[in-house]
């Protein structure tokens, strides 16, 4: 039954986050943008108790129900809730949002492929303690971006100690410092156990904070989302216990495509999440430009025919259309998952579209505001810089289009390169 209603419980939670966005994030936006490697401490401290409580309940459920719990449960609003919170936080400030404590993408990877024991072992840290902790995810390498199956980071088993020895370099790692140096967190590191096996050899490993042999670079200097901690990680003979290899024994020993499937499964949730973050910025930019224009007495009359609209009105209606199409596609990709249906195609569709849309809307916003749009005194130009990353990470627009194209044409990666 077609229904666009967001559950009231989630709506209420969103109002709380909107308050945080307005009172905690926005007042720090400009400062943190201009002081690149400082942490959004107010936001982090504000969010940690809520994040902890949410995770605590999840861990409780895990402990009570064990392995069968996930298969049995019906429609779950967990992803929908997450997506909406991400949208609202990103509306507040996309850079600060990325510093939200908790498992992040690393936690999502554990959720997606970890055994129940691994989930409890690794995720409990996000459910307790006075100090916040973070999870991170490391797939990309300097020479393996979109083509992540050609990664060169290796994991070799030392049969004597039953430990994995990890060597390699990972780049563009969000919350790398927060997870490995500034908290009791972890990073999920993707590495190959058999370089000749291609995708089939790639597995994911938990590297915990303060493990010897891990070097965290100084923060990278970026166009936008400057409050976000982005680093290069170097692994030099990093030893982790055998059980830090994520997944069941079956998955662990599988060769062929199955090993890589874990990363792909994480994308089914993380791509809608990036789309949602993009849409938060898009909404912020759109609302901002409409507010500023309203101060000049310019508002949109939605009953006018095209020929009577001003240039401003036409642009705004075009921007709203782009916004709406991308936001609804994002919700569609989440709804599919909520109802237990596959969403890989929808996830890539929403990510490709939302990345393009936020790029365009934020650029238009700067243009429409003229000299004020370009000024660093207002936030429009920051929205435009923050926006662009959504067109790139979790698969560039082009990679996602490639996935969409293969799906709609029924092509393999060999047929459509």
């Amino acid at each position, binding site marked *: 039954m077609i229904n666009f209603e967001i559950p009231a419980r989630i709506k209420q939670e969103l109002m709380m986050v909107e308050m945080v966005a307005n009172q905690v994030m926005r007042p720090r936006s400009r400062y943190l943008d201009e002081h690149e490697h400082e942490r959004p401490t107010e936001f982090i401290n504000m969010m940690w108790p809520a994040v902890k409580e949410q995770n605590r309940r999840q861990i409780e459920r895990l402990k009570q129900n064990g392995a069968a719990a996930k298969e049995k449960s019906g429609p779950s609003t967990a992803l929908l809730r997450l997506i909406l919170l991400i949208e609202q936080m990103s509306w507040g400030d996309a850079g600060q949002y990325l510093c939200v404590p908790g498992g992040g993408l690393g936690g999502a990877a554990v959720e997606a492929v970890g055994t129940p024991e691994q989930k409890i072992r690794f995720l409990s840290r996000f459910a307790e303690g006075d100090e916040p902790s973070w999870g991170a995810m490391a797939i990309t390498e300097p020479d393996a971006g979109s083509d992540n199956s050609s990664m060169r980071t290796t994991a070799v088993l030392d049969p004597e100690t039953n430990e994995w020895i990890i060597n390699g370099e990972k780049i563009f790692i969000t919350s790398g410092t927060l997870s490995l140096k500034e908290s009791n967190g972890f990073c999920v590191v993707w590495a190959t156990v058999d370089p000749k096996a291609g995708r089939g050899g790639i597995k994911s490993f938990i590297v915990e904070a303060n493990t010897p042999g891990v070097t965290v670079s100084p923060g990278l200097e970026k166009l936008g989302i400057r409050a976000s901690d982005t680093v290069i990680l170097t692994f030099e003979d990093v030893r982790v216990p055998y059980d830090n290899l994520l997944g069941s024994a079956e998955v662990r020993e599988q060769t062929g495509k199955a090993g890589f499937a874990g990363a792909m499964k994480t994308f089914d949730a993380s791509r809608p999440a990036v789309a949602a973050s993009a849409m938060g910025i898009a909404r912020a930019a759109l609302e901002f430009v409409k507010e500023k224009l309203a101060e000049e007495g310019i508002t949109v009359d939605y009953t006018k*025919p095209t020929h009577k609209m001003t240039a401003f009105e036409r642009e705004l209606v075009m921007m709203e*259309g782009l916004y709406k199409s991308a936001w609804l596609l994002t*919700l569609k990709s989440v*709804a599919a998952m909520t109802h237990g249906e596959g969403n890989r195609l929808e996830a890539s569709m929403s990510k490709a579209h939302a990345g393009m849309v936020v790029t365009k809307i934020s650029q238009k916003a700067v243009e429409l505001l003229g000299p004020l749009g370009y000024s660093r005194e207002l936030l429009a130009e920051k929205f435009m810089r923050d926006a662009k990353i959504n067109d790139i990470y979790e698969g560039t627009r082009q990679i996602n289009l490639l996935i969409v194209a293969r799906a*709609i044409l029924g092509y393999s990666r060999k047929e*459509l390169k």
Partner: protein
Amino acid sequence: MLDFRLDEEQKMLSDTIHRFAEERVRKVFRHADEDGKIPADVIKAGWEIGVLPSFIPETYGGFGEPSAVTAAIAYEQFAYGDLAAALNILAPSAVAMAVLRAGTEAQKEAHLPLFCEDKLPKIAAALTEPSILYDPFDLKTTATPDGDEVILHGVKSVVPLADQADTFLVYVNEGGRTQAYFIPAGTPGLTIGERDKLMGIRALPTFKLHLDNVSVPAENRLGGADGINFSTLLNYSRVAMGALAVGMARAGYEYARDYAKQRVQFGEPIAHRQSIAFMLAEMAIDIDGARMMVWEAAWMLDQGQEATQAVTVMKHYVDEMVMTVADRALQTLGGYGYIREYPVELWFRNARGFATFDGLASA
């Protein structure tokens, strides 16, 4: 709770119309465009699916309740078959849904049963006007009170099937508000002009309607003394047009997609190239996004929410989407896209029409 899956009835309706589109409409639509008319038996079969009566309550001879969302799902499938055929079959909806939503009790009782019969009712709505400055909220056709009568004056355009109609529902400017009047065919001063010569939807006969000081009883006003809230009716109509645009865009996209898989150049299907494959991927995304916007607007209307902003934004997006998709479909076929033996140029011509089509159907 957020959900975008069709219910069982909607699925069945959608499948039925899709089959009709594939098995009946697609067999004739290319020729119909050249011929200027759709075979009567195809229109009859489409009408007999009974979509419109399913939105009309039993009291008035139908067997259901109105739902803009269900209408959007159904109309998309009709237009997937062919836009001109869809507009022919759905032309009565422009009057029926307006009467159902805004008519007086007497008007509902008088008119609605006509839409629940086996034969297509001979009644046509007339909204658009032949002017660059056409504005549905500021029409040039006027209504002036004259005792118990009202004098209607002006010119309407793109009135579907006007030559066969025995009644018209004509939208006019009455003291700055858009209102509508029933006018029986043959009323003095009312003449049907020549058939429109349009770029697309050539299989659908449409006409200009000239009103030269036509006098009708004031009670012929839709909605009686209070008249209508035109903005709401226009929203329902635009949802219908949006759904039709999505259906036609999908027709073009699917044709281009299938063509690209079998057209071999440089020793392999052209769909193996990213330049073609990415065009198709973007078409698929644009269509999906547009459909979601149509559904959302329809859902808001069904919930009784104010939807003018959502509808306007949707209309602008969808009008552009359908043109872009049709253009890319044609581009995918290259030279063959330009040849009338193939259907893509037809979709390309039809697509631009959505920017000017108004009030031709209603959800």
